[in-house]
């Protein structure tokens, strides 16, 4: 399965897609990038006159690249089915703020994939290679016929 095929299977619409490139994926993890362009709508309110990328968006970005892309790859043999994922828990430390316009790189490492639950260690780095947030994210993969 190519990285483009994985991107094509992502279930997100344009306004909530936080994956630009998927650099690598194998049985044990995934790596990809995303750039938070300056005109993303949440910057207008988070915060007034002081735009910072919300932690919840950083978490979502880590989940989309680290967990969902990996999950689609792990279920590659069920290619006729569409995959969606429900995040079930996360524990993330946020170390540095991410400003509008920054590109981040996400790397995930599978902890386990059992009974359709995928648990990963995930890390986000900025363009300078500094870790901006890291932690553990888990979700349940749901494959849907014709879905």
């Amino acid at each position: 399965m190519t990285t483009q095929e994985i991107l094509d299977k992502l279930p997100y619409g344009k306004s909530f897609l936080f994956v630009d490139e998927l650099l690598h994926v194998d049985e044990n993890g995934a790596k990809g990038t995303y750039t938070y362009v300056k005109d993303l709508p949440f910057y207008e309110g988070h915060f007034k006159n002081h735009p910072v990328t919300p932690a919840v968006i950083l978490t979502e970005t880590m989940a989309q690249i680290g967990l969902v892309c990996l999950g689609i790859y792990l279920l590659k043999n069920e290619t006729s089915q569409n995959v969606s994922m429900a995040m079930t828990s996360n524990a993330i430390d946020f170390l540095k703020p991410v400003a509008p316009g920054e590109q981040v790189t996400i790397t995930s490492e599978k902890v386990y994939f059992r009974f359709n639950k995928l648990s990963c260690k995930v890390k986000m780095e900025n363009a300078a290679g500094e870790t901006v947030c890291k932690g553990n994210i888990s979700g349940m993969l749901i494959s849907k016929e014709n879905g």
Partner: protein
Amino acid sequence: MNKEEIIEALKIIVEPYSEEASALVHINENTDFITDLKINSANLVDIVLDIEEKFNIEIDNDSMAKMLTVKATTEIIAQKLEAHAG
């Protein structure tokens, strides 16, 4: 390991995943993980992984699908332990 011992061990495994204090105190064969202990499917996976580690057994997909009550879970653990010993 007899049935009571398995249930006792199970109680310790399940405890961190449930907020239902009174259902936990009165845990018995008829306790249902989802309706009585309000455990979600994601945490049920973690409970099964903890069971594998605690009892040194392997749970397959078919067994996992049945493990919704203390009774069914205890039976599966007992079967696996027996198969292991034999």
